[in-house]
Every structure is written in structure tokens, then in C-alpha cells.
């Protein structure tokens, strides 16, 4: 699966903590541990956009990894 566009609402749900997923990709989990907290502290559109860009970037640069593919299926179906 290609990494879905940053405009997909699931990215916002992910970084705001609105939805919680059982993820596999370690780098994304560690990153999200910080980003979800960052958005809770500063829920501005600019910060949400920045956090989406960071997590999208981590998934996009590791798209060939089996755990990334599992996560994308978990998040986007």
C-alpha cells in the first residue's frame, strides 16, 4: 500500500489521539508517544499539521517495511 495522502483525516485522528491504534512500527510508536502529547499541549492547526508531517514522513520513508504496511492497513483499512 502506498502511504495515503496527508490530507486523509486518519492522520489527524492519529496525532490528536482521537483514535488509538495497535501499531507495530517502532519508530512511529516512539514518535507518536511525543506527538500526541505535543498536540494535547498545543492543539493549534499549525502544530497538528507539523505533527502529521513528521509521522507521515516516518511512514513514507519506511514504506517497504512489513510493519509499516501492517500499520497502514490498521489505520486506513
Amino acid at each position, binding site marked *: 500500500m502506498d502511504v495515503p495522502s496527508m490530507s486523509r483525516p486518519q492522520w489527524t485522528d492519529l496525532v490528536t489521539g482521537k483514535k488509538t491504534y*495497535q501499531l507495530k512500527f517502532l519508530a512511529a*510508536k516512539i514518535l*507518536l508517544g511525543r506527538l500526541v*502529547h505535543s498536540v494535547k499541549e498545543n492543539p493549534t492547526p499549525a502544530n497538528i499539521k507539523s505533527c502529521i508531517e513528521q509521522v507521515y514522513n516516518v511512514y513514507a520513508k519506511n514504506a517497504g*517495511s512489513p510493519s509499516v504496511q501492517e500499520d497502514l492497513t490498521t489505520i486506513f483499512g
Partner: protein
Amino acid sequence: MIQDIMTVAETAKLIEAGNVLLLAGDEAVLRQLPKGNWIGGTIPYFISHAEGGLATRDRIFVTDVTGVAQSVEIVERDANGLAKVYAEGPQEGFSVVIIPALSKAHLSFALNAPNYKDFGVRPLIGWISGVHLDDLGKVTPKVFNGVTGNALEEGAVVLQATLKPGKVAEVGIVNLFEQGGGDILTFPADGFSAKEVLVNGEKRNFAAYIVKNKLDTRLPLVADYYGALVNISFQGIDEVEGEVKFYAPVFTGIRYKHAKPVADYGEAFKACLENKCQLSEDRVVFSCNCILNYLYSGLEGKKTDPFVGPITFGEIAYQLLNQTLVYLEVHDV
């Protein structure tokens, strides 16, 4: 792929054959090796398939990644230069970093890596080099650049490996510790030590809190990073100064809990592998485990198959971890 304890002569033969090696051993044996495609760090504790946990100053733990690496580059980075460690990793590969314990690079990486540019965009694994516990305070931990023969007690060595086509690398962890059912602990500042802690939101002196609640400091603090459990190990408590020291930094905004006890590391390890980890031994190309697990769980003479490797003063799976086994898998895709 070799992951085994070897003599200096056996290791030298592999180096001279042009193999790409990750090495761990006492400083005296690493200094005897010829130049070549290798990086190394000082430590005399290992887990091997044949002997389990052991301490030896005479032999070297050899991890041979020749079979998966199409090409490698070995670089040295100072504390500031480590900020590029994710961004400059090979596009289709992985990086292995070794940093000497208590160096500026160690402290800087521990505190700042989560905020380095492009955190997590390339697989990064590694470890913190150390010394025999009898040599603590007498000998400094070192890292070695095999290409130049340099031995560094400040800075880091990084092996950047581009994988052969059709392969992809993944970094994983095995952490037997889970958050206990106690208080939620948060800290007002990032750092390797803390005087103040917020216990369920109420400000307290952390040293006094630990003493009053009789917390077993062999068990780490555990943070839940979106399901990834990350430990912070206790180094010591100064009751006079009211200060608690850690082997990795605590971070503001992260909620920590004291870990549940693990009755038998070996049994828990087996159960974890059977229940949680879906690993194929032939995919694991490198792993290392923590000196505190080795000591507190009595791993001398015990095996943690399929994982073997150096016993370290800190583990790196993207960022610095404590009391955790980290491993690198290479998949065929």
C-alpha cells in the same frame, strides 16, 4: 551470518577477508585487530549461543553483516554531528551507532535524539560501550573505527549499511518490564537526574518518595510511548541532596510508572518470545541486551536464544533505552 564469540585471530581473519563486522570486546583485544570494515565498542560481557551469558576479556563478540550489506560507510560523529544520524542514514538500509558511556556524545544523544531532524526516517540501532565493572572509574569506555584504527572515548562511530536489493531492515525491542499499578509520575524538566516529581500531579521530592514507598530501584520507570514501553533505569539515590539519578533521561510530558517485578527473566523471556514476538531466528542479524538485565536477572551462564550479542551500558533503538533488548531484523521483500 555469524553472531558469535571469537578469538582475536579468528576475528582478524574475517576482517582481512573484507567482511563487514560489528565488534564488541575489551579494549586490549580490539586494539590488536587489523584495519578493515568494522566498528567496535568496549565491553567484556556477552551472551552467546553456546555459553550463554559470560564475561571474558580475551575474546570478541563478532556480528558479521556481510551477507546483507551491499555497501557500507563508516563515519565518526561528535556530539553535534550525531544530530544528522537519522537524516544521513542510507535510503535502503540501516545505521548502527556505538557511543562511549558517559561521553558528551552519550549525554547529548540521550537528551536530544528524539528531537533530531527526521527522527525515525531510517532504521537506527546501536549501543553504549562500557567497561568491566571492576574497571569502573579507572578505564574509559571506547569506540573503534576499524577503517582508520581510531579509538575514541569521545564521539561516536556509525556504520551506514546499504542493504542488498530485495531486503528491508526493521528495528525491534524486547522489554520484559511493564508499567505497574502505582502512581503516575511526571517530571518538570528533562534530564538524567530529578529532585522534583509530580506524583499523580502533586509535587514531591522524588528521593523521599522512593524511600517512603520502598520502591525497588532495580526495577525501572516505564513510559508508554503509544504502546512501546520505554524504561528509565535508576542509577542511584542521594537522600542528602534529595536527588535521584538515572541511566537515561526522563522527559517532561511523559507519564512514567514504576515497573511490575519480573520473577524470572529467563522464563519471562521465553514466554515473551512465545506469546508476543513473531521472530524468525535467521532474520535477526544483530542484538544486544542491557548490563542491568545481565546483573539483576543473573544472566551469566543463561541463554536468551535466539538473541545473542554484547551486554551494554545502554541500548539504542532509534533513541536511548535502558534494561531492554534491542534487535535488528532483515526481511526479504
